[in-house]
């Protein structure tokens, strides 16, 4: 069910990427995404593939597990590939009724498909190797400069980490309530759209109540430990760059230079 979606999940193994500073990984993902939009030549994709392959290897997450995350975006992928394939003007290669495939369309859709797949894999490597807490910590620290323009960075990142933390809990809760209602003869699958929507009431009402209950409990627990927001708050494990991170930044520089170089020269 909902648990089967691997996109955005954390994969608990110990690897060089897992130990890397979350800011480095965030920045690296950003560099990778930008570089993908620069790429318009086969050579650029070869370089990007190399970068991605290295990251996958270093993450020690099974390749099969990463690819499974693609299932969630399959539909979008297929739609964008077929639009590019059939709707691009240019030198005609093949025609079937109103559908025609051009040389430009073919290369465009290949690049587009590859770009989307790399985007998803690249960002899922980050979430697979970084716990939600590390991720929001990294974001808080990297976006700290926004505090100068009165953006409540700490509060936003706190809300994000709470939200991320509660996703699995709410998924489990949903599963439990669903089973409890099924034990009372509820049916969530059959019927038309209206009947289905109606059958959601016995699921949604308890779920909302439980979410509010958990929110109240959490707020009370935070207050009991004197939480007052970000001002003057220190961290038990402050983020610190290591040699590994400087190496990574150097590598990002070389990678980006190569991608820009390919773009300009070829």
């Amino acid at each position, binding site marked *: 069910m909902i648990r089967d979606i691997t996109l955005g999940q954390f994969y608990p193994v110990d690897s060089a990427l897992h130990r890397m500073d979350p800011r480095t990984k965030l920045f690296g993902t950003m560099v990778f995404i930008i570089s993908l939009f620069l790429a318009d030549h086969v050579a650029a994709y070869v370089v990007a593939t190399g970068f991605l392959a290295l990251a996958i290897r270093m993450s020690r997450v099974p390749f099969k597990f990463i690819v499974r995350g693609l299932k969630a975006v399959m539909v979008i992928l297929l739609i964008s590939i077929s639009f590019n394939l059939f709707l691009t003007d240019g030198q005609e290669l093949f025609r079937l009724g109103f559908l025609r495939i051009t040389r430009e369309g073919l290369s465009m859709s290949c690049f587009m498909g590859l770009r989307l797949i790399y985007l998803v894999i690249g960002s899922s490597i980050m979430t697979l190797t970084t716990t939600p807490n590390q991720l929001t910590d990294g974001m808080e620290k990297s976006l700290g400069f926004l505090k100068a323009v009165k953006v409540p960075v700490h509060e936003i990142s706190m809300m994000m980490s709470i939200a991320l933390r509660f996703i699995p809990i709410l998924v489990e809760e949903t599963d439990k309530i669903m089973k409890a209602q099924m*034990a009372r003869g509820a049916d969530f699958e059959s019927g038309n759209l209206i009947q289905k929507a109606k059958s959601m009431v016995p699921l949604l009402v308890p779920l909302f109540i439980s979410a509010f209950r958990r929110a109240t409990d959490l707020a009370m627990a935070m207050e009991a430990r004197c939480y007052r927001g970000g001002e003057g708050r220190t961290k038990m494990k402050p983020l610190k760059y290591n040699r590994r991170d400087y190496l990574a930044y150097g590598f990002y520089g070389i990678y980006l230079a190569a991608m820009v170089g390919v773009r300009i020269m070829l």
Partner: protein
Amino acid sequence: MSIRVENLTYIYGAGTALEQYALKNVSFEIPDGQFVGLIGHTGSGKSTLIQHLNGLLRPASGTVYYDGTDIYNEGYSLRDLRAKVGLVFQYPEHQLFEVDVFSDVCFGPKNLGLARGDVEERAKDALKQVGLKEKYWDQSPFELSGGQKRRVAIAGVLAMNPRVLILDEPTAGLDPKGRDEILDEISGLHRERGMSIVLVSHSMEDIARYADRLMVMNHGEKVFDGTPREVFEHYRELESMGLAAPQVTYIVHELKERGVPMEDGITTVAQAREAILRLLGKEGQL
């Protein structure tokens, strides 16, 4: 009306890094009208096991027979099965959703497709059975106390008129009085209506008092199965699983070791009291 479980195996997170056996080759049979206690440490597989008994989970291998029919057969109506095998989850009050107590209890029988009159009849019976006073019936279930909410939720399952009632820690988080009341009502259902009961519990005292038979789960396997007195003989093994026999059995063992001729198989405080009085020659007194 028996339930027969054969070589049940269930795996959580099959095919991922977190694959884990929740049940390993569990087999047993529960004949009609038995009161079974099911105990085990947190994560021992008891909750997973009971969710197979009404077909909410599908095992990796093995199967469950209700009345001799395999419940995982194609075309077997799991909805009918769930009416006959009622399952009350842990903290069942979290499943309440209706505007008033009475309509919430009606949810189950309504799902069975009964006529309106029958539905209301059953809801009334169920609410009376759990001993909830009529003045609460048109209140919102969310305004009731914890113990009352739990009764409403149990009534919600009872209203389906099950032959077998499975309860997962029905007394968790209740005060001693509420706990005793709920357990007495459950035992009443067993005595008066001949319902089979499967009671999942942490409390050895409760199990010793009510159950005819006791099953112990550990790491997804059934390790003991017998009458409470047979199982509590293994109190040392139970301790190594993070469980314990009822406290009174420890006193009895201690007395025996010091040469007091206590009789075998004492599992409740009342039995121990009788035995000690008998030894003192004061039977029937106090």
